[in-house]
């Protein structure tokens, strides 16, 4: 290889350089701002994680798998996965190999930013090219990879269904400019390198192009315009990038180490929340996932639009979108970059100002005594169980009755925490963003639980279970959901369950499944009682029943179609009984279901 120009410079690199300098400085400023916005202890934790070997490895692996290979999207849809990873990984390899070429052949130019990008313009082939054939081949191969991805991206604009997406986002004007400039970059690169293939050398793609279109490409007067166009496309892309969805490319590289450092959203708009909002690639996977999506009118209330409005600071829409959501967490579960739609919304809600702020810290917990259980005290085990039914179970008394009956049959010594009235667990207040009030309730309940001397806290409501697990400090006390507890009783032989010929389908309640990751125990319990069939969307992808406490502004007429949709998803395998493990899901489904809906405690109690 030898250099064609002594200066190693041409004016066409200017658009690229302007774009590059702009985007690099923008990202640097953004990075510093986000880090400054983090609370002090979070920032400390972040820096420590950056030098901890374990998190370093995890960061590198996550960045490689998520940002370049898009493993999560691959798992969802192969074609969609290929499209993303071919563009991201292909482009990354083009940059890496470009740099290697510069280091190998013209090391004294390595300090020039643009040189690896426009390498083929600045060099000419010599007899040493054979050494370069390997790299030329790789360069052409990865360019082809990227081009195939771009082609799929164009095709996806027309038929997103092919990629497993029923609906996709409506791009904004700047998004479109970013999109078209991104699409233009690689065909223009191919054209530009096609012009120089007979000078600088090339491989199967560029060389062949040069041969086929010889009459046009051999005319070197057309060469410069092609390189200018390539550089301009790059420049435009970099300049609009911060204002488009493509900002997710640099932001995600920051989000991954922040997440791995264990940082949580503490401020609705700053720090980690901001990193999440800018990491949203606007892919629109959450649109199909959102249970509100059964109604077309609610498409713009999904997380992808929340992120867009947060970037635009459109307060009215932010309020609307955050308020309507049922917080089922499905968008969070399927998001390929890990934007936490539910937590972002709770954070927005926490910014609200209320005229009345009730204070629960004055409640006297001595007035809320624990009631004795029904079990025979002589069989009571040493490690006492405290059963907390919660408000929703109080409204569905057959669940608490069944649960008590199971405890009696298994000979478990227990006490009933809220039989004669109790306090709310605090989760609804938490969901409403009223964190102070929630904390007061948490403290009061902690007092009651500690005083009872119980070793196990049993819950039949996953809404309660989640907050007891996440927010309560109950060291030394095991917090257990009744699905898990019943499974344990069956496994240890304390509960003998007879098998019926009925087929059951299990509905994964949002707070139990996505919220706490409990999927297998309830299914194992049901298998002991009968046949188990699966819903078409289950486990992590389970559809919210529509009764959630997450929203108080979503009307019943709207929820109705969501419930019906969730029911039709559950009944695809025509089960005899729909079983769930949440009192709220159960009463919501009972309203519209065409077959019996039960809580898992009722099913088991009947078959013992």
């Amino acid at each position, binding site marked *: 290889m030898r250099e064609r120009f002594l200066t190693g410079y041409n004016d066409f690199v200017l658009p690229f350089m302007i774009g590059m300098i702009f985007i690099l400085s923008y990202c640097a400023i953004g990075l510093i701002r986000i880090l400054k916005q983090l609370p002090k202890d979070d920032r400390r934790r972040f820096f420590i994680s950056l030098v901890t070997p374990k998190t370093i490895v995890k960061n590198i692996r996550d960045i490689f798998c998520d940002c370049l290979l898009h493993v999560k999207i691959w798992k969802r849809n192969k074609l969609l996965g290929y499209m993303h990873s071919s563009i991201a990984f292909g482009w990354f390899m083009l940059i890496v190999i470009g740099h290697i070429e510069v280091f190998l052949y013209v090391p004294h130019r390595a300090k020039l930013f643009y040189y690896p990008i426009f390498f083929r313009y600045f060099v000419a082939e010599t007899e040493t090219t054979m050494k370069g054939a390997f790299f030329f081949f790789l360069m052409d191969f990865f360019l082809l990879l990227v081009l195939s991805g771009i082609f799929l991206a164009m095709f996806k604009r027309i038929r997103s269904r092919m990629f497993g997406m029923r609906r996709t986002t409506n791009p904004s004007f700047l998004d479109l400019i970013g999109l078209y400039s991104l699409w233009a970059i690689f065909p223009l690169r191919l054209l530009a390198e096609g012009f120089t293939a007979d000078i600088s050398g090339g491989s199967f793609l560029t060389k062949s192009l040069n041969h086929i279109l010889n009459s046009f490409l051999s005319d070197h007067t057309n060469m410069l315009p092609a390189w200018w166009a390539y550089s301009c496309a790059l420049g435009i892309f970099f300049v609009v990038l911060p204002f488009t969805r493509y900002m997710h490319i640099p932001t995600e590289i920051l989000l991954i180490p922040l997440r791995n450092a264990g940082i949580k959203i503490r401020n609705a708009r700053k720090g980690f929340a901001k990193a999440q909002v800018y990491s949203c690639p606007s892919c629109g996977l959450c649109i199909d996932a959102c249970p509100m999506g059964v109604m077309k009118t609610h498409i713009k209330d999904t997380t992808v639009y929340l992120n867009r409005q947060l970037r635009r600071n459109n307060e009215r829409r932010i309020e609307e979108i955050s308020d309507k959501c049922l917080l089922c967490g499905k968008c969070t579960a399927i998001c390929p970059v890990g934007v936490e739609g539910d937590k972002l919304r709770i954070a927005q809600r926490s910014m609200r100002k209320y005229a009345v702020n009730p204070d629960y810290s004055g409640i006297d917990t001595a007035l809320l005594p624990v*009631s004795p259980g029904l079990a025979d005290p002589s069989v009571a085990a040493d490690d006492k169980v405290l059963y907390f039914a919660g408000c929703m179970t109080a*409204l569905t008394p057959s669940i608490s009755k069944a649960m008590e009956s199971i405890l009696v049959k298994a000979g478990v010594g227990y006490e009933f925490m809220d039989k004669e009235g109790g306090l709310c667990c605090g989760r609804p207040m938490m969901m409403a963003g009223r964190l102070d009030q929630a904390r007061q309730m948490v403290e009061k309940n902690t007092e009651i639980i500690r005083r009872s001397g119980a070793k196990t806290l049993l819950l039949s409501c996953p809404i309660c279970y989640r907050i007891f697990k996440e927010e309560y400090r109950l060291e030394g006390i095991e917090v257990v959901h009744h699905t898990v507890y019943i499974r344990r009783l069956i496994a240890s032989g304390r509960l003998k369950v007879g098998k019926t010929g009925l087929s059951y389908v299990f509905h994964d309640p949002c707070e139990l499944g996505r919220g706490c990751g409990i999927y297998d125990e309830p299914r194992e319990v049901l298998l002991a009682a009968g046949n188990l069939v699966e819903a078409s969307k289950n486990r992590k992808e389970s559809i919210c029943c529509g009764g959630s406490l997450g929203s108080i502004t979503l009307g019943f007429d709207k929820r109705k179609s969501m419930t019906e949709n969730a029911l039709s998803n559950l009944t695809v395998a025509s089960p005899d009984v729909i079983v769930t493990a949440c009192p709220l899901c159960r009463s919501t489904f009972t309203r519209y279901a065409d077959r019996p809906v039960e809580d898992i405690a009722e099913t088991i109690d009947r078959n013992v």
Partner: protein
Amino acid sequence: MKENILIIGGGIAGLEAASQLLKLGYNPIIVERSGRLGGHVADWNRLFPDMTPAEEVVSRLVAGASEANIFLNTEISFINRLKDSYNVMLSNGVSIITKIMLFATGFSLFDASKKEEYGYGVYNQVMTNSDLERWFNTGHDCRITEEGPSAMGFVHCVGSRDEKARNSQCSKVCCITAVKQAIEMKQKFPDAMIYCFYMDLRMFGKKFEDFYISAQRDYGIRFIRGRVSEVSENIEGKLVVKAEDTLSGRPVKVTLDLLVLMSGIVCDHQTCRTAGMLSLPLDSDGFLKSRDNIADITASPKEGIFYAGACTGPKTVPETLAEARSAALEIHNHIISLSEELNSNSEGQ
């Protein structure tokens, strides 16, 4: 020739319409799915506001319709549309050709076990308004002891005016029924403490207001404005009812021996199925949709099909009877216009 008129439902609306149509010289055919006539009213003991025995009302109506063709334990299997009439196939194998059909299908009582927080079907001491009337009639119900409850409550609007229960309409008669039943219970058990938990009291009918005042003044029944939030059982097996007294703005908690749920009036599922065979539209409240809710309540949007009684919405007994008579007259006018049309057509030829 005597014109066949198919009346679906042998409740008070169907019986009254049949007796009027008989008087007008037609041939009414009543199809009733249960084994006896009189519908819901036949299950009731006494009717407000004069405590008229329900049996009296029903037997008078049955006597009036005795000349009609009556099929008990019979349902409609399917309906075929002919050129200008309908061929109705009954479950007993009889097929009827008729130009006129009258829906007197009535209503269903809301299934109180769907409001699980009130504990119907979960706790032994919870019953519905219709269970209580049955007890008035038969004197047998394990939920009511010999000596009677020392404290009991009535919950108004169970499954009415309740979006969560999928019924936003007012059932119209439960307020006054609760007052009536409360008085009757107080008459039987003078020492019992009786509470009514209500949202509003809608005392719209003749003498209803007097009845309500008397319940408070003469019988000492306690009216608490506020919905019941939940019902639970204490260790002695008594019911603990939690509600909010919205007048004093305080939560209340009472311990009761018996709780009566005033199940509301909801559209009958079977009626919707039959209406579906004829593609009759349903109104937004789930009941059959009249041609006009003010001027034409007894007419359906389809020629030759008429409505009477609670199939178009909750109604009191006198309202239902008045509507049945009005439907009979509508049918009469319709038949006359049909024959006039026929005559003018044949003259034209």
